[in-house]
């Protein structure tokens, strides 16, 4: 057992976990942040995507101890109070989800994509960049539309700040 200290969604947290604990289990079971999903558990599906120090990673393939000292952001940490993050709002407006299981990972991966590309995103790039996130409902079409819509909204939001 080790005590793992990290920052999750802006709050300093500490958890006593076995060294073999995965980050996704620490988030879900110790912190009750169950928005981060476990889909495949084999690093393929991306449902468990969170940000560690600003970069999208698959939290099922990171030991909790590896994240000690890091800043972790989950799907629960992106809205501002009642105001959805522009990516969440775009998914809602564009019907970018059906069952919703992959959505937290899709949104975290997509925010990272927009951060890396800025406003220079096109459909082909979004499809390519979403290779690590699997959706079995939508056929991806509306997810891609959502990301492109959100890229515009995030640019506007940034410009306003």
């Amino acid at each position, binding site marked *: 057992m080790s005590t793992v200290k990290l920052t999750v969604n802006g709050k300093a947290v500490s958890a006593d976990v076995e*060294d073999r604990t995965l980050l996704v289990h620490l988030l879900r079971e110790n912190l009750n942040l169950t928005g981060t999903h476990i889909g495949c558990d084999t690093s393929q599906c991306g449902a468990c995507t969170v940000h560690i120090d600003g970069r999208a990673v698959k939290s099922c393939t990171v030991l909790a101890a590896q994240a000690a000292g890091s800043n972790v952001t989950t799907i629960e940490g992106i809205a501002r109070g009642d105001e959805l993050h522009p990516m969440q709002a775009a998914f809602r407006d564009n019907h970018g989800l059906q069952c919703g299981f992959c959505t937290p990972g899709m949104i975290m991966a997509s925010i990272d994509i927009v951060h890396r590309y800025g406003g220079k995103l096109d459909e082909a790039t979004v499809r390519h960049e979403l290779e690590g996130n699997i959706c079995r409902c939508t056929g991806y079409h509306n997810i891609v539309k959502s990301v492109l819509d959100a890229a515009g909204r995030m640019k506007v939001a940034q410009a306003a700040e």
Partner: protein
Amino acid sequence: MYETTYHRPSSIDEAAALFSKGKEAKYLAGGHTLIPVMKQRLASPSDVIDLGKIKELIGVEPSGDGIVVKAATTHYDVATSDTVKKALPALAYLASLIGDPAVRHRGTIGGSLANNDPAADYPAAVLATGATVKTNKRTIAADEFFKGLFSTALEDGEIITAVSFPVQAKAGYAKFPHPASRFALTGVFVAKTPSGDVRVAATGASQNGVMRIPAIEAALKANWSAGALDGVSISADGLLSDIHGSADYRANLIKVMAQRAVTAAG
């Protein structure tokens, strides 16, 4: 996953000392091979020694005749490094094709090489450019480093610290990715040194892991063009054959990927 003990050393020497103390210790870099294998209970190290936060193992530096990529540098950082893009753009391109974005944020060049998966991308670049693998004990030439499927010249406890890539006159990489895993069904790296020597390496194709392709090297040395490979035929002997592609299919892919790599190299 079986129980294990996690360590986070802050230096290479501390990591090596922890390794020698552990009963069945394993080094962890990005963890994108080791953790999945531990989850499947195919590996059960007593101790996991995290190299991913050791500062002296991270970064890219220009060196006199090339670049030095330190071992714990992530695929994402190699793909986006201005130093790599300027000195050896084919290497940045190769790194940008590994896995998916989340994998590239964690996986490292040292981890990839130490694992030597027969379908990994980096071994092709290291072998084709005649790079040198630096460890905490010695330097190993690319031709001496790869020893077949998942095996390398590394000794027990030895740590890759950096890879030194010599500058090339021309270099290119082309890969036919497995559509689900993005591993190379076959990937070919072609490189021409400033003195005109040509080295070509294929990954994903052979039963023995990464290999050089002498027939393509000879043809490109005589005439550096995709067309020069039209008449070259690659033997299917010793190539992988599985549900994703037969040995004959991979033999053809070696040639086609080499042609695309030459075109990309210009």
